[in-house]
């Protein structure tokens, strides 16, 4: 995360929709299969590892999202100090990767986090997603990976009408423009 460059650095407000890029945020991809791995990440992060599909768990500092039966996505709530971020990554790397329990990959530069707030955010998402948000929008902590305007995204329903959307850096500017364009008509 040295010399992190955010691609958007902007906040836009429309009627009932607020879109803002939140960066730099620590993001770590965790992969592992066995029970020891699941127990270990729970212990190291003081968080219950979500094993049910499309769920997440959170504590004051971190969020852990289920991505697939052997893959999780960790991200911080606040913009982290680089020293703190590196020490957490090192701790996980030493406890998991080094002992071959699983893999720990820092993907902070790979994904860009965009926060969406407001009562009409699901109307905006529905304009470009094939995913059915009917149950999702009422389930706090729900997670989905889907397509948004043909772009791969991870969506975390943080709270009612408040969600975090992760998009790959190379697609982020395009998605940002598309969201702003669509939000004007909702």
């Amino acid at each position, binding site marked *: 995360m040295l010399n992190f460059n955010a691609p958007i650095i902007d906040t836009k407000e429309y009627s009932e929709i607020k879109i803002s890029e939140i960066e730099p945020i620590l993001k770590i991809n965790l992969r592992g299969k066995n029970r020891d791995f699941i127990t270990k990440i729970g212990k190291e992060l003081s968080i219950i590892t979500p094993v049910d599909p499309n769920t997440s768990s959170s504590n004051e500092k971190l969020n852990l999202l289920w991505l697939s*039966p052997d893959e999780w996505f960790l991200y911080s709530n606040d913009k982290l100090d680089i020293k703190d971020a590196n020490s957490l990554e090192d701790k996980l790397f030493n406890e998991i990767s080094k002992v071959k329990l699983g893999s720990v990959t820092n993907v902070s530069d790979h994904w860009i986090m965009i926060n969406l707030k407001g009562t009409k955010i699901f109307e905006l998402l529905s304009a470009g997603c094939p995913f059915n948000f009917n149950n999702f929008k009422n389930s706090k902590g729900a997670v989905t990976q889907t397509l948004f305007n043909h772009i791969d995204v991870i969506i975390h329903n943080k709270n009612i009408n408040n969600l975090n959307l992760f998009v790959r850096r190379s697609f982020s500017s395009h998605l940002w423009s598309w969201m702003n364009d669509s939000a004007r008509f909702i």
Partner: protein
Amino acid sequence: MFLINCPYCGERDQSEFSAGGEAHIVRPKQPTELSDDQWAEFLFMRKNIKGVQFERWNHAHGCRKWFNMVRDTSNDKIHAVYKMGEKPPTK
């Protein structure tokens, strides 16, 4: 356009998936002992049935897991979805 019930994530739109061709093709135990024709048969030749077919699918824009599906290619009706390694349904 149809919905697929991913065995890991649940019901999702078909656009999130990619088809991986015919399922349950067993790799020959001794490829070096095969003739070119037999090897080509294993490598390239696939059935393209109009009707019920066993297929591999990947949830490419979701959990990225592979699974098997029994689908009627004439009307896209899905008869069964099951994980890799599980036995295919007999009926």
